[in-house]
């Protein structure tokens, strides 16, 4: 009896295995994939536009998307250029290949890119996407659709806005890292880790973009010289369009309002009574945001507690030896911070960009108001312009370093 069973089992397995053995459908060796490490998106210039080949559509027969053509610059790792193990001296060859293609949409451009490469384009190692400011101001949602549909894309990849054309960043050869795009990606990741920027990755961007009561923000990079990149501020959006940018220090202010604990920014605070100032650096913050309706108008009150540290004083004239002096500095620092917060909020209000997510607070805490008056993201943007707010900042300087004076 059991022998019969066994034979049947073997026969069935055999028949099933035949089609499977012809398979290995998804098997694609790592060196046969064109590992795209970074992508830069720019607006295509006039001359470039003419170079377009008919890859994904035939001439004018098919409806061509209305939007402007884009230029995609991809940085692709060249297998063999980056050796295993410690770097041998004399590796002057560039380890990456930079390819520029144009297209009507992102996917169109990617198809054009595939047309130029022997290996299959693989986006699993895409670590950073740079969008030039020009394109960002026109809207980013046209890229996101592909990025969201494609399972290869990491949700933890970075998305940044660049001041210059994005292709410049692709050609960059920083010396701190063997692979240029990794350096670029590390800038965003590491600056987040040391408190220079709020957490920012593409998944978070999408999440905020979909939520009704908040607008998105992205890091804003600028080139300094030939080889260094600077975090130049925070690009803020209205809907999917970039509407403005902050100064670097305002990133710290923004983080304070958002209630991101880790502080990394320092600012000069003028010591009252003296003409000199000291550098006060935020160590940690604690933020409480309360929302209510004042006469039917939404009102936000923000309480921020700062833990700071004095990093440097400008001249020997200031004596930091007594706590009264620290009290004064604390007060001054609170005042300054409060001022800049108010300024930043007013700035974003003007541009309809609620990057602080006050809308989410209203939606969560005052659902009746929200359901009755707001409901949609567009409506909230309108209302955001009119909301009132009050800010209270409380700084504490607990540390002055190893110097007693």
């Amino acid at each position, binding site marked *: 009896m059991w022998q019969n069973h066994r034979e049947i089992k073997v026969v069935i397995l055999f028949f099933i295995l035949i089609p499977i053995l012809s398979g290995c459908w998804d098997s694609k060796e*790592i060196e046969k994939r064109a*590992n795209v490490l970074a992508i830069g998106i720019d607006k295509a210039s006039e001359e470039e536009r003419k170079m377009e080949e008919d890859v994904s559509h035939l001439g004018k027969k098919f409806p061509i998307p209305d939007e402007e053509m884009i230029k995609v610059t991809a940085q692709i790792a060249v*297998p063999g250029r980056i050796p*295993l193990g410690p770097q041998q001296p004399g590796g002057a060859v560039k380890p990456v290949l930079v390819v520029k293609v144009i297209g009507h949409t992102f996917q169109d451009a990617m198809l054009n890119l595939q047309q130029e490469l022997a290996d299959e384009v693989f986006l699993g190692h895409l670590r950073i996407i740079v969008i030039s400011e020009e394109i960002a101001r026109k809207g980013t949602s046209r890229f996101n659709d592909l990025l969201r549909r494609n399972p290869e894309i990491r949700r933890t990849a970075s998305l940044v806005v660049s001041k210059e054309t994005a292709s410049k960043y692709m050609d960059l050869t920083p010396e701190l890292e063997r*692979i240029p795009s990794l350096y670029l990606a590390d800038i965003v990741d590491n600056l987040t880790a040391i408190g220079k920027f709020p957490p920012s990755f593409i998944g978070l961007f999408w999440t905020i973009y979909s939520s009704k009561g908040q607008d998105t923000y992205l890091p804003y990079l600028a080139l300094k010289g030939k080889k260094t990149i600077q975090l130049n501020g925070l690009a803020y959006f209205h809907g999917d369009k970039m509407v403005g940018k902050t100064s670097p220090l305002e990133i710290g202010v923004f983080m304070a309002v958002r209630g991101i604990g880790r502080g990394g920014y320092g600012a000069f605070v003028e010591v009252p009574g003296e003409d000199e100032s000291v550098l006060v650096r935020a160590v940690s913050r604690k933020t409480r945001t309360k929302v209510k309706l004042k006469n039917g108008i939404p009102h936000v009150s923000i309480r921020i507690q700062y833990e700071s540290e004095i990093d440097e004083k400008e001249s020997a004239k200031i004596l930091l030896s007594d706590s009264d002096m620290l009290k004064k500095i604390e007060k001054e620092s609170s005042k300054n911070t409060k001022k800049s917060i108010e300024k930043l909020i007013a700035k974003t209000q003007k541009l309809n960009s609620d990057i602080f997510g006050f809308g989410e607070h209203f939606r969560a805490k005052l659902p009746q108001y929200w359901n009755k008056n707001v409901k949609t993201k567009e409506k909230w943007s309108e209302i955001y312009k009119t909301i009132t707010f009050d800010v209270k900042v409380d700084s504490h300087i607990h540390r002055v370093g190893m110097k007693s004076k």
Partner: protein
Amino acid sequence: MSLFRTKKRSIKKPQLLTPSKLGEEKGSTPTSSSLIETEKAVKEILGVNGDLQIKHFKVFGQFSAASVYLSSLVNQDVINQDILKPLMYEPEHLMGREKTLNNLINLIITETLYHSQAKTDANIDELIGGLLLGETVIIIDGVKEAIHIDTRKVEKRAIAQPETEQVILGPREGFIENISTNISLLRYRLPTPDFQVKTLKIGRLTKSTVAICYLKGIANETVIKEVEKRLSEIDIDAILDVGYLEQFIEDNPFSPFPQTQSTERPDKTVANLIEGRVAILVDGSPFSLVVPVVFNQFYQTTEDYSSRFLMGSFVRLARMLALVFSLIFPSLYVSLISFNPELLPTEFAVAVAGGRAGVPYPAVIEVLIIEVSMEILREATVRLPKQVGGALSIVGVLVIGQAAVEAGLASPITVVVIALTTIGSFATPTYTAAFALRMLRFPIMILSGIFGLYGIMVGVIFIFNHMLSLKSFGVPYMAPVSPENYQGMKDVIIRSPLWWMPKRPGFLQPSNQNRLSKNANKILEHNKVGNDQREDTTNGGSKGDHNTSSNDNLN
């Protein structure tokens, strides 16, 4: 079901090989009272053998007799000193007493021979059988019965360290081929009447002695019965090693996993007996077969128990990791390289791609080629003479690996992966279990070549399901993990301190579960007391008591 199977198979086998054609003809004819006739009958059967010795002499100077033996099997000294001398040179206490043919046998056995193992028999068949086992037979003219005296002497090697199961801490003895030595090694560790050894003979030609050893009152009676039943149903011409038995008594012969444990170590055997298992020994094999087994036994060693529990647990964890390594590491590599390179850190992925740039084959083929050559290399090292083997393995690994990388046949990472896998498979203490995983590695590798990680998972589920459905003598193979058994679980991943495990593993359903006496569980308490000794010396005395009592129970 398997019982049924073994039975059927043995019946199917045509009885081509009669155990002894010569003996069969004579059948069980009784010995004649005439010396000449008996001698003739013996010579007819064994006459061609040069080592058959028949010496005629006169018992007490009166009765003509002959001693018959096979000179290759006996101890000549014993025959000369303890048998022939007292028979030929009439002892003093017998002088003057009446000796007739009737009381002669009784006189010889009870008052003359200086030998403890003597018996009478009146059957040619038995006589021949006895001769072949090394007995000396005294035939006396006019007496029907012959006297069989055990004078067997077989060369055996000395007790040595077990080759396949080395330990750092623990006893150094291993079994040898001789079964009585092996039983003596067990008896030496278990001086208790509960330790029982049942013997039976299996094999029509070899007539091998098979011993079933167990601890009465601890081992489950049904398991003992089952073992006896399965063994008694074996009908084969030869049992040359305990492995022959294994193949007849295991539950699922088609499974890659061993369902019995064979060990060279008497201490391990004893430990298993104490847990309530049954050990099977065969004359001529330096291994004992322990049943029933569960899977976790195969990565445990006696050393785990003889070393301190932290150390034992750590080593065991490492071993489990090695087990997992040896099963799925190459397939994991294949699926990372060919299917999901996004799982690797970018820096590493780019570098690996560089390393593989010149390799012409897909990762599956590459890994398969190297794995197969590794298997060949391993087999070759086992077969080669010791002096050459050591050299070859080093040469093989270093030179071939290096050359393969340089020739572009394999990427350096592949070599690292295969090397780790091979080392991992050596870390499994039981050869048979390691072998099972080594074999199963290949189908998983092929699956991973087709489906990537999904394939590995499917393969692993297949394997686990198979293991979960296995049973060894009624005990589920994956016990005590599933079906769960709290007592047994303490000894699966870590090796809990002995005093945490006061009971024998319940999944073996031992008749007696208790290992530790109740007060032995106070070890931790009296440790605390011991620290307070300076303040309260009266407790010091009780500490010693506890220690001795617990020791008694642990051994």
